[in-house]
């Protein structure tokens, strides 16, 4: 249906065809994918990585969210369709977006792809504040690319150029591209059939048309250029409108845009209407909760998904508050997890084994050795202690023998001494006893002598007395006093001295006579004395036997009682 109208110039800006377009397939998204994939496959070698990141994103995102994220100030035109379920409008919008994306890819400056990304540009260049400059930049680039395409009207060529362009920006592109591509769905992204095929099937414009169209749209739309475009390729009519939003990006701000708008052609207006409607319907209301996911390229060149809260929204800028999303749970393949975990554990284990074990072993061995030496020292100390105690007791033991021997010797000596003393004492006592006996005997003897002397004296005195009486009767006296002669003699000798002094012849006579008488008396006395002596001797002998017998008895008693 489309193609017919496309060729007429009057229809050029009439989107009716698109609006009325019946969905060729039930699954709008799939269709869409078809387009995008086509883009991508054409896009060139960067395809694979793009695809991957795209896949991840699409997988995560909810349809709605994504839709909103894609809707933006300038690109909003297509987004209205999202609100209604699957509608023609939506289809159309998507188509338009694709076209844009495709174009952007072609445009391929670091800035331009971002532009399509629903208001990303501001953030991409490192924050919303920068928006102006980026817008400028982007606009310029876009113009460049547009003119370029214009010049090379064959899309193929353009494509090539684009790939050339992409050279330096390759990285960026690969990152950005997926976002465009996953416009398709949260349904897993597949590499769809080539666009060309779909195009023929669904009566869509061919690649070349789209490109040209885009370029055309990018430039401020004026009839001249349009006519030129038509001349070069007639089929691009309706497509243009889909990408209509792009021109706005040129404007630095909403005001600028507003100013510029009147100047635009009717077609432009129409497109604007669409886009505005889309904006109204699906753009992010200001101050919405920060639940919108966007991929933002940081200054460091890392593309990261942020949750974005739109604070203020302009046509070409957005003030947003961004926050890092919670780390999505990686749902890896269990086998991969297992492998990773095993690797981790294995690495840790090897590290432990290589570094820790030898170290700890050393510690262990040292500890063991220390314990051993401690035990040894301890036991030695114990041994010494015990030995000391034992030796002490041993010394006592050994000393005991010596001591007993010494004691015995001491005892022996003591008793010997005691014995000696006792013997001495006894000897002395005996001696004393003997002396006492002797003394007693002497005393007795003396007494006896005294008695004898006394007796003798008494005898002598008796005799002398007797003689005195018997001086006349001398003879008789002599005979009678025979016994007394000894005593008389002694008396005479003593008396002789006295008579010697007064010797007288008469007396001498007398003395002779006396002497004669005395001699007679002495001889008589001697005879008496000898008779007495013999008698006395007999008596003494008898007396002496008795004491000897007594002595023997005493000796016996002594033996019995020492």
């Amino acid at each position, binding site marked *: 249906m489309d193609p017919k109208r496309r060729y007429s110039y009057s229809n050029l800006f009439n989107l009716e065809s698109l609006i009325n377009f019946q969905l060729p397939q039930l699954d709008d998204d799939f269709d869409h994918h078809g387009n995008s994939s086509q883009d991508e496959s054409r896009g060139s070698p960067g395809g694979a990585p793009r695809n991957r990141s795209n896949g991840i994103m699409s997988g995560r995102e909810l349809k709605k969210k994504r839709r909103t994220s894609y809707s933006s100030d300038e690109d909003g035109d297509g987004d209205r369709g999202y609100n209604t379920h699957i509608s023609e409008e939506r289809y159309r919008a998507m188509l338009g977006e694709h076209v844009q994306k495709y174009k952007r890819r072609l445009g391929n400056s670091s800035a331009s792809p971002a532009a399509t990304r629903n208001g990303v540009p501001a953030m991409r260049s490192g924050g919303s504040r920068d928006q102006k400059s980026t817008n400028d930049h982007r606009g310029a680039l876009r113009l460049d690319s547009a003119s370029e395409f214009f010049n090379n009207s064959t899309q193929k060529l353009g494509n090539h150029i684009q790939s050339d362009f992409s050279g330096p920006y390759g990285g960026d592109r690969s990152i950005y591209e997926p976002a465009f591509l996953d416009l398709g769905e949260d349904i897993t992204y597949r590499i769809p059939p080539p666009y060309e095929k779909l195009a023929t099937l669904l009566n869509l414009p061919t690649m070349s048309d789209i490109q040209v169209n885009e370029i055309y749209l990018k430039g401020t739309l004026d009839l001249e250029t349009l006519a030129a475009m038509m001349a070069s390729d007639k089929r691009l009519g309706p497509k243009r409108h889909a990408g209509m939003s792009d021109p706005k990006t040129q404007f630095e701000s909403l005001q600028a845009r507003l100013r510029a708008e009147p100047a635009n052609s009717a077609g432009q207006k129409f497109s604007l209407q669409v886009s505005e409607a889309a904006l109204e319907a699906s753009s992010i209301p200001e101050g919405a909760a920060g639940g919108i996911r966007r991929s933002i390229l940081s200054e460091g060149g890392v593309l990261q998904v942020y949750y974005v809260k739109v604070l203020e929204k302009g046509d070409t800028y957005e003030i947003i508050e961004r926050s890092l999303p919670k780390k999505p749970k990686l749902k890896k393949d269990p086998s991969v997890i297992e492998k990773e975990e095993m690797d981790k554990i*294995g690495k840790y*284990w090897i590290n*432990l*084994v290589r570094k820790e*074990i030898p170290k*700890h072993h050393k510690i*262990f*061995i040292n500890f063991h050795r220390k314990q051993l030496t401690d035990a040894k020292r301890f036991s030695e100390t114990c041994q010494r202690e015990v030995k000391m105690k034992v030796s002490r007791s041993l010394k006592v033991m050994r000393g005991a023998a010596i001591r007993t021997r010494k004691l015995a010797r001491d005892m022996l000596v003591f008793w010997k001494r005691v014995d000696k003393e006792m013997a001495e004492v006894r000897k002395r006592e005996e001696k004393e006893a003997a002396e006492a006996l002797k003394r007693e005997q002497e005393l007795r003897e003396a007494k006896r002598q005294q008695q004898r002397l006394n007796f003798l004296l008494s005898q002598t005195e008796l005799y002398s007395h007797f003689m005195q009486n018997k001086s006349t009767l001398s003879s008789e006296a002599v005979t009678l006093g025979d016994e007394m002669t000894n005593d008389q003699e002694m008396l005479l000798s003593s008396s002789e001295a006295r008579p010697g002094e007064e010797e007288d012849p008469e007396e001498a006579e007398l003395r002779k006579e006396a002497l004669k008488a005395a001699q007679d008396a002495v001889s008589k006395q001697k005879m008496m004395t000898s008779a007495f002596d013999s008698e006395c001797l007999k008596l003494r002998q008898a007396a002496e036997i008795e004491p000897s017998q007594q002595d023997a008895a005493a000796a016996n008693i002594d033996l019995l009682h020492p």
Partner: protein
Amino acid sequence: MYGGDEVSAIVIDLGSHTCKAGYAGEDAPKAVFPSVVGSVDQMEVDNPDNPEDNSGSAPDSKSKGKRRLYVGSQALGFRRDLMEVLSPIKDGMVVDWDIVENIWDHAFRECLLIDPKEHPMLLAEPCSNTQQQREKAAEIMFEKYQVPALFLAKNAVLTSFASGRATSLVVDSGGGSTTVAPVHDGYVLQKAVATSPIGGEILTDCLIKSLEQKGITIKPRYSFKRKEIRPGEFQTVDLDFPDTTESYKLYCQRAIASDIKECVSRAPDTPYDDSSYSNIPTTSYELPDGQTIEVGADRFKIPDIIFNPSLVQTIPGMESFAETAASLRGLSQMVIESINKCDVDIRRELFSSILLAGGTASMQQLKERLEKDLLEESPQAARVKVLASGNATERRFSVWIGGSILASLGSFQQMWFSKSEYEEHGASYVQRKCP
């Protein structure tokens, strides 16, 4: 991830012969007891034994189903009528988890006196442990004991850690088997692991048989009474217990024979042959019944079985094992083959760090003999070095000590397989967490 090293971990090494358990960070296991259990069928006896025995062994014994199990050397030391001695492990694999649970119970509650809920557990496992076995172990540990964290480590790896090496060739000669396993960066190179069933128990059996051949029977301690009738003079009276099972008798005989083996045997410096060892001086050993035996050539012959398994065939009574023995290789061949299966890059390193571990490896002169044999067979360039810890305890418990070192590492604490991870991922997660 488990981040608590405040409560010390428990390290358990359940070997085929002995179970070692203790706290991580210590230098020797606290509890060492046989990993066999006595089992009495509950149907037959309702233990009319003396009461003091009952009270003593009641905690050990768990009546599960129809049997009552007795765990621990004390409970096993007491002879019971109809008590069979069972081992939970066959060919290095756990076949009876019920017994294993009983052994663990004994270790936790009787020996270490701990609550397994509070301590992370490090279990040593055989090098070629299957996936099911590991998962089963994890399941029991988490479900039954509710341990806060678990780790399973391979015996060979732990032995290697016990000597502070990340790469080594571990020759672990234990009770039930001998395993040669290369360890590289804390991983066992499974392809190159060599195992032979010749372990301490086979040697003990050989010794019993060859003593029997000489007319010496080892009387288990329970089978006689011995009393001192005059100072220095003993009288033994044989007792008869008709209800004693054959397995219990064998268990007791083995206990004695293994002591004989440990006391007198010595690896010969050169391969054993009957003629040159026929008039070797004998060593005497006094059996518990007072009988003194003289062990001559067997001193050398028995240990040489490790190096030359075909010697088993010359021992009468070992016919059942002789067939398998014929196909086995000697220890040094196993080592060489195992190294040759490894990558060329690490062979050199493996040759220079051959670690001897396990109870049987602590036999006298074994290290020297192995080194000598390897020197003859190894390539010229290789620098053969057999390493063995100086003291026998360390050699016997090297696996446990390695576990103790590992579990006490600060940086290891985040490698535990924690209870929450178990709850989240299930038992199979153990494969990932425990390399």
